[in-house]
């Protein structure tokens, strides 16, 4: 592969230029019998704010999951913050915000406990000293300082999403990867999120954010990458707002058209399921645990 200089795993390169935050080459992801990603290249430089756009089923959620090691690569190569995906990645400097998991029914847990789990990474499997203060600080950054002792399942959807963002911020990452952070989120939380993200990017944080539409985040986005059927079809200036929705082959994957509520789109981009079959299910379809709810 043409990227062989990048793939030599052992030698830490002494170049004065910092390596890109994300460097993905030829990413293929196959789930079951379907090719979700078919050779995606993506580079995000340090300090960039990049939006990943695409219709439901285009593979954007799967792409970010493969970038952070949740979904295995069938082929291709990913480097994060200059290290090959794996134990060598400086996980302390990377924050990942998943799509909000629908109502948890497990053991009750407080926002503080959930956020504190963001302080664990790589080989650090015990909480550091002062974890409580750090967790509160992260909750404060998303405007939930007063909810530290609230049970997460009693918070609104938007607040739960903010807790997940605080969990990623708790370790003070350099690179933040967010998967549809505003899908199905109430308006005040969307605005709070946009304000938080503005502040973070001003501080030089690198951001890759999966979005269904640019919306309130449009002023922040420096570059847009558009996926369609597992391939990058656009990489550059933010496209016109409706461009991503105007493709001729778009309609069958998105039968509700533009009037689909944000909530309806939340269930689909889990990436692990066949998109059209579950499209009408508004709740994210979690299929990984076999037990009855």
């Amino acid at each position, binding site marked *: 592969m043409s990227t062989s200089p990048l793939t030599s795993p052992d030698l830490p390169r002494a170049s004065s230029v910092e390596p890109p935050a994300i460097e993905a080459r030829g990413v293929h992801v196959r789930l079951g019998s379907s090719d979700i990603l078919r050779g995606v290249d993506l580079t995000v430089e340090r300090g960039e704010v990049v939006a990943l756009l695409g219709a439901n089923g285009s593979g954007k959620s799967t792409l970010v999951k493969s970038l952070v090691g949740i979904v295995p690569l069938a082929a291709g190569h990913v480097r994060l913050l200059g290290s090959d995906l794996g134990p060598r990645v400086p996980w302390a400097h990377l924050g990942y915000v998943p799509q909000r998991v629908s109502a948890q029914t497990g053991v009750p847990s407080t926002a503080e406990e959930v956020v504190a789990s963001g302080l664990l990474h*790589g080989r650090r499997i015990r909480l550091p000293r002062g974890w409580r203060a750090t967790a509160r600080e992260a909750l404060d950054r998303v405007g939930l300082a007063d909810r530290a002792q609230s049970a997460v399942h009693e918070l609104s959807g938007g607040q739960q999403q903010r807790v997940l963002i605080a969990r990623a911020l708790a370790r003070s990452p350099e690179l933040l990867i967010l998967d549809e952070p505003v899908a199905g989120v109430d308006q005040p939380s969307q605005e709070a999120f946009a304000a938080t993200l503005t502040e973070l990017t001003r501080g030089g944080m690198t951001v890759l954010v999966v979005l269904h539409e640019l919306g309130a985040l449009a002023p922040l986005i420096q570059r847009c990458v558009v996926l369609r059927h597992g391939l990058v079809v656009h990489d550059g200036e933010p496209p016109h707002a409706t461009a991503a929705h105007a493709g001729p082959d778009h309609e069958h994957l998105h039968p509700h058209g533009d009037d689909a509520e944000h909530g309806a789109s939340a269930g689909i981009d889990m990436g692990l399921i066949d998109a059209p079959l579950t499209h009408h299910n508004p709740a994210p379809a979690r299929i990984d645990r076999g037990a009855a709810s």
Partner: protein
Amino acid sequence: MNALDELVGMLSDPFMQRALIAAVLVGVTAPVMGTYLVQRKLSLLGDGIGHVALTGVALGWLVGGAMGVVPDDALAIPGAVVAAVIGSVIIEIVRERGRTSGDVALALMFYGGIAGGVLLIGVAGGSSGNLMQYLFGSISSVSPTDLWLTLILGVLILAVGMGLRAALFAVSYDEEFSRASGLPVRALNIAIAVIAALTVTVAMRVVGLLLVSALMIVPVAIAQLVTISFRRTMALAMVIGVVVCVVGLSVTYWQTLSPGATIVVLAIALYAVVAVLRPVLVRRRPRTAHDPHPDIPDDVHVEGGERCSA
């Protein structure tokens, strides 16, 4: 003074002393791993491991007999430990694959475990009656050796279950996020499964393999009726576990009842009481009793800024 004499009598009975120590150990340890299993919606995992452990009991018996070990069931508990650990790792691997057939694979293991136990005990020259004490517990026959094994395993369970609480919570709460944090997710998952297996074998003597899962899960179910944090749920479940184990066992000192069944019935009765009293118990937290998010005007964003009332 009569009641006190009775109590002293109970506490000075060496069988009862050992049984009480075992009951305390089991009451403390079982809910620790139970909390993680409830979090992962694997409440019945303990049950499944218990089934597999039965084959281990019979296998230990068979090996012990072949080696001419003096009490022919001396290797029953080590056998159960080995079988439960192997079974739990297999269950975890099946779960990780996440196939829909995993459900069927687990069922095959569970019933294979029971059937294998009954068959092997026959081969070893025993009858399925010999298995009864493992199926339903036999706390009154806990030997000093059993007690030491229980103690060692109990310390191990507490050390891992509480020492690694943050990491085990993280992986139980959100496995994908833990993976995206570079945590050793598979090792942590296997740790939970293996420690759960050890818990099953520890609790086996007290409540029996068929009721082990109840002791892991029911205290947690009771605790989470009144708690809102993971840490407090676990702590309260441990207290409840000790209380029901000790009270249930003590009852059977005077009444001829099965200790295991008494403990479990007691726990379930407690669940019912707490569930009924719950509105009273949680009222002291006004924030959760009222609108949990009053600062949020509406969750539905309607074009044009209108708000629909729910």
